[in-house]
């Protein structure tokens, strides 16, 4: 009955998709080609401000910022993706179990969970780096473990309320097992907060990696990541702002893309939104 009206919902999806497409495209290109060697040191180009030749300037080693941002896209996004996947999968599983079964299982898991929550990420990272060595899998594991307890808590909180709903009861009446009920009825309805947490975590992980590399615990340099570029750029906030702005924008664009697309997707999946 409505005519062709501009729909922000569609706009969300389009903007989000476009942002992600650009980032992914850049990451893909970077595998075979970047304008300059992302590791190539050039003493004459140190702190070169943006110009036609180097649209995003050069850093303290004279390395081209654009090339580094492109080369860093893959590492940053894949580290973030793996970490979030780790935390979400483990956290959701545990959160579902504790929230749904309650009782002693709940107590025991929450005990460990609260203990883990209290652990500062740096300490975990230090410990794991000592065991695994400073590489990106160590980071994924350290950050994954650090973020899992939050997921557990958020999922558990939602599940506590959903398990009292009648459709969960109905599933039990049908004779469905606990696990099936959890996965089929509880999980999808606990999805909204989980999605928010996961997309936010994506940003946190990139920034945490940044904080870690600030301390010398991140993805080993000189391999660029947005995180370590951002961390390295901090002292030059005034004198060479382009060093920080570029990776910052990359992170923002990726997050915005993921969030917008995620929201659009969630709306699409939510039956109550459909026309």
């Amino acid at each position, binding site marked *: 009955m409505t005519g062709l009206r501009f729909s922000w919902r569609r706009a969300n999806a389009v903007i989000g998709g476009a942002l992600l497409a650009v980032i992914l495209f850049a990451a893909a290109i970077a595998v075979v080609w970047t304008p300059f060697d992302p590791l190539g040191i050039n003493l004459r180009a140190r702190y070169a401000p943006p110009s036609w030749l180097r649209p995003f300037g050069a850093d303290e080693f004279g390395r081209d910022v654009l090339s580094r941002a492109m080369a860093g896209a893959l590492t940053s996004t894949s580290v973030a993706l793996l970490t979030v996947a780790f935390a979400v999968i483990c956290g959701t599983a545990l959160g579902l179990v504790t929230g749904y079964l309650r009782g002693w299982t709940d107590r025991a898991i929450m005990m460990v969970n609260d203990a883990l929550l209290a652990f500062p990420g740096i300490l975990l990272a230090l410990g794991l780096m000592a065991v695994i060595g400073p590489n990106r899998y160590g980071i994924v594991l350290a950050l994954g473990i650090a973020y899992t307890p939050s997921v557990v808590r958020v999922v558990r909180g939602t599940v506590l309320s959903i398990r009292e709903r009648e459709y969960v009861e109905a599933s039990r009446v049908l004779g469905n097992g606990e696990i099936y009920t959890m996965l089929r009825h509880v999980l999808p309805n606990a999805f909204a907060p989980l999605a928010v947490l996961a997309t936010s975590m994506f*940003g946190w992980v990139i920034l945490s990696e940044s904080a870690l590399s600030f301390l010398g615990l991140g993805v080993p340099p000189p391999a660029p990541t947005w995180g370590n570029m951002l961390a390295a750029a*901090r002292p030059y906030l005034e004198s060479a702002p382009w060093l920080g702005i570029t990776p910052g924008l990359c992170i923002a664009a990726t997050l915005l893309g993921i969030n917008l697309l995620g929201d659009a997707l969630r709306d699409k999946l939510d039956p109550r939104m459909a026309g």
Partner: protein
Amino acid sequence: MGRYLLGRLLTTIPTLLLVSFSVFVLIRLVPGDPIVLMLGDAADAETVRGIREAYGLEEPIYVQFGLWLLKAISGDLGHSISNGAAVAPLILDRFQVSASIVLIAVLVAASISVPLGMIAAWRQNSLTDILVVGGATLLLSLPSFWLGLLLLLLFGLKLGWVPVVGYVSFAENWQGALTYILLPTVTLILIEIGVVTRMARASTVEVLRLEYITHARAKGVSEASVLMRHALPNAFAPTWTLLGLVLGNLLGGIAVVETVFTLPGLGRLLVDAIFARDYPIIQGCMLFTAFLYVIVNLLVDLCYPLFDPRVMAE
């Protein structure tokens, strides 16, 4: 209720023990040694061993843990290796600084982002919505070490509205204290607004489709009231969980902000201690933050039945 509370408090003891023990072991497994750090490039093995002995670090780890635990029970958390300060009073002192910032920040962040998220949900897929979501996402991608510095340079240096470094406690001079904690608090607020807004929005979107919301509207309830009175309690549970997490997280981890704004807070104490491998301080801080976490989460758990009366407090 009282019994239940007591029971829950008792169950926190294993958590605290678990944290204490794992920190105790972990920090000793991590390479690096407080004594080597103290001696720097001139540390030779013999001297190091001698000093380690003096600090009781050469004992087997379970003996060290036992001794520490016995003292901890009586409230004595030992003395710092770095500067000899008594740990327990130090932690309490530093905690006051962190707590004042964090509590204000979380309160303000919540009272800004929850309404904001709800309005975005209410106007879902409108320009308002996309602006709020976009803004929140942008804030999510700002690292606190950048944001803090930016604010410091702008308001502290360029405009000179607030002092750049230093701290006085509220007890000494509360107006002064406010000027010192203003920027760190604002930084934290901006950092936390992103995720809380999005969470509030997402859960409100879910709730707004429900029948009782329509029913409330049918009673002529204003939209503001529909949001605040009818949608909020039902949508608030995940946001509440998140706020609990944020609160706990911040109480233990605002090291970055405290460093940028030169505040003597708990987070910086812990992080500095980690880098200095100052075992007694690390252990003390962890015990303390774990306790905070447990308390905060206990409160969060106790509140679930308020949002959804069907969830019984066991």
